């Protein structure tokens, strides 16, 4: 048994899983509040990565370098993606709030296609190189074949995001309003919660987190195009369903389980079917455990 190889697959799975988890949080939060699968959520992640790329380009021309660029680019990506998420809810979902659920779902698919094609036309259909701005620390040299510095940053940032999100949802006034709205929207209104505001906030937070994932993975993989949000979005959706859609710990668990499964499968079996895996998973969950690993035991009409 090659332990280093096993460990590298474990780390690789953790990397993928962290990114899936970051995106899945947005799916699950939105679903929890308005019972909508926001199919355009993956596109927000992609737009986050593109925003960062553009900002990095500009700052590089201006003579900046190193981690400072990445931080500024990530901050810009978060703000920009959050603005997209907020706008998307306003124009594509809010007008359909009282319409049948299928209408909002179709609107979400339309939004996804629109954003993909908009970025393809505004940028390019080709892959663009994304600079790796996270230096390979010297102390990591001996384990370079197992884990890279950019991955360690991914783990750390993901953990931090989750911690902050948990604190927000558990202890802040708006966090309580979000939980109350998810559990009983009308009663939340009768308690004085401005539900429109809660929904907007949910889109803003979910989008900001997806953008962080987008920037992190782009910097790790080294290239992006307009299509990355589609596949990552679908997989994160699978992760959310796997964990139990509507459950935030479930999204994280689902992301990690999917990441590790993919990583070990491609490492030990075959890399040809890497992307098929998520879909097999989805079918399996829907058949055997539709409420997901940590979901409430009720059949949801998705």
């Amino acid at each position, binding site marked *: 048994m090659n332990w280093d190889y096993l460990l590298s697959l474990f780390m690789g799975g953790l990397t993928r899983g962290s990114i899936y988890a970051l995106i899945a949080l947005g799916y699950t939060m939105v679903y929890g509040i308005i019972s909508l699968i926001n199919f355009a959520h993956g596109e927000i992640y992609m737009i986050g990565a593109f925003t960062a790329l553009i900002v990095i380009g500009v700052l590089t021309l201006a003579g900046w370098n190193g981690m400072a660029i990445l931080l500024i680019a990530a901050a810009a990506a978060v703000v920009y993606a959050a603005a997209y998420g907020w706008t998307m809810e306003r124009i594509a979902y809010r007008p359909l709030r009282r319409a049948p659920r299928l209408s909002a779902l179709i609107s979400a698919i339309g939004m996804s296609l629109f954003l993909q094609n908009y970025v393809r036309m505004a940028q390019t259909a080709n892959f663009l190189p994304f600079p790796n701005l996270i230096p390979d620390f010297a102390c990591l040299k001996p384990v370079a074949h197992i884990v890279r510095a950019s991955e360690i940053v991914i783990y750390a940032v993901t953990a931090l995001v989750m911690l902050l999100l948990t604190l927000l949802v558990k202890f802040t*006034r708006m966090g*309580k*309003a979000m*939980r*109350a709205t998810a*559990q*009983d929207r*009308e*009663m*939340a*209104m*009768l*308690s*004085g*919660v*401005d*539900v*429109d505001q809660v929904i907007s906030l949910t889109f803003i937070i979910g989008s900001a987190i997806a953008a962080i994932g987008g920037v992190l993975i782009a910097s790790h993989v080294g290239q992006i195009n307009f299509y990355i949000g589609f596949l990552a979005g679908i997989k994160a959706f699978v992760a959310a369903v796997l964990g139990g859609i509507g459950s935030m710990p479930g999204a994280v668990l689902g992301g990690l389980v999917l990441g590790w499964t993919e990583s070990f499968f491609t490492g030990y079996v075959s890399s040809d079917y890497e992307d098929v895996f998520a879909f097999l998973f989805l079918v399996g969950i829907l058949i055997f455990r539709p409420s997901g690993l940590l979901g409430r035991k009720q059949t949801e009409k998705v």
Partner: protein
Amino acid sequence: MITPEPLLKIDDIHSFYGNIEALKGIRLEVAEAEVVTLIGANGAGKSTTLMSICGLTPPRRGAIYFQGEPIHGLAPHRIVARGIVQVPEGRRIFPELTVLENLGMGAFLRRDPQGIKADLDDLLGLFPILAQRRRQPGGTLSGGEQQMLAIARALMGRPRLLLLDEPSLGLAPLVVRRIFETIAAINRERRTTILLVEQNANLALKVAHRGYVLENGRITLAADAAALVADERVRQAYLGI
């Protein structure tokens, strides 16, 4: 009992579910510090009246005034901010929030931490069972405990007008008595104005000063509680006498 300027004045409201007209022109008034009850059969439109006041089924025609100002057409959270708090039918406890968090939601719009703390201690004293269960998820409480929690949650908002929708529903007689004693005490001690919807007209007319009878989306009778209790039609239809 009607003062020149009632706290709540509902003027000929018509409310709909899709094309179904559930309220066909309701008029009623509630004066400051009064307990008014709304009685009527299943489907008469009692809950719809309360939901119309709160803005969840806003009337398509007619007007609602609170403290002399129109509130129909305001978003529900703005109506709550005026001081109108409802304990809806079926309690509607947030199942996964703890008892304390549920109580906290009742004070969602308040910004006076000291006052909130004082009211919390007060209410936990009034309902000791809630104090015992404070860290338990609301969904795990019994029906009677949930009803007490629902009332306590509403009181955490320091309502000017408290709307109660069938607080006795599905509860044991002893619990019902506790709850009605509490309602009477809230009105007596805090001078909170109450609009009470009840199936149990016997009980409702004991605590209420006045009452309205609602049939098929219309008010068919309005009188003092004593007069309603004496009314032959009311006795037959709602008091089971």
